[in-house]
């Protein structure tokens, strides 16, 4: 028997995407690509997202991936595939770009 209070099950994409966008804007906002800072940027984006997501208080495990790439005319493809329970788990990917940087953040939420 499960005595948990009835709460919204499933992964809510809008909340998560808002959190990601805010965190990316706050970290790299209007900055140009700088090689010596990019490590710090990815770490900060991912950690901010993670702490905001854990504040949501939902019974989820999260996996967050961030790719920051310099705009150089190069092409890149990313794909992901998951083996999980569709009714409770979900993912959200945000692609963000400015004049010199591409940033792709993916969040996967897996229900406990």
């Amino acid at each position, binding site marked *: 028997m499960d005595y948990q209070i009835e709460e919204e*099950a499933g992964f809510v994409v809008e909340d998560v995407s808002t959190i990601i966008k805010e965190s990316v804007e706050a970290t790299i906002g209007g900055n140009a690509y700088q090689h010596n800072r990019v490590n710090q940027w990815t770490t900060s984006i991912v950690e901010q997202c993670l702490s905001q997501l854990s504040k949501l208080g939902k019974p989820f*495990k999260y996996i967050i991936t961030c790719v920051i790439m310099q705009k150089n005319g190069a092409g890149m493809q990313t794909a992901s*595939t998951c083996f999980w329970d*569709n*009714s409770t788990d979900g993912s959200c*990917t945000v692609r963000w770009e400015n004049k010199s940087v591409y940033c792709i953040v993916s969040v996967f939420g897996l229900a406990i």
Partner: protein
Amino acid sequence: MSDKEKQQRKEKRVVKVPSNGRGKDTTGRTKDSISTVSYIDELGHHDDNARLAPTMENTYQMGPYKRFPANAATDILKDVLTSYLQEEKYEVEWSQKMTKTLCEVIRARVKELMIPRYKIVILVHIGQLTGQSMQISSRCLWDASNDTFASYSFKNSSLFGMATVYAVYFE
């Protein structure tokens, strides 16, 4: 796992630019940046599925009987990436298909390991090497004693390929 559970385990493929119309994309624009959000949406079934999430019975199992072998997973990734990408050159359509193919192949091989009660997430990145710089990082909020990941990156003269597999224990 209890016999009385009815678990819906489905395989889902997520692609960055949805080509079969099942993914959803919304774009937002601010002063000097553009952002796009993509996610998978179950057409029309989303609400039903969310409410019918199965209630599980207790299994009284404290932890996984069989841990996910990260070394075996790294070997699989190395094997798959090297064999598929060794002599290839970066081309747009080819690499779009190749990332999806690699994802499917890796998922099939990891499932063959038959580790029960683990959910799997696989990420594959293929990119062109033109002297640009990039950084890929990830963080996870999970149970470090049960959950793990494995990753491998491959490079040849014109492209790089990176694959990561995350294994999350389902309590």
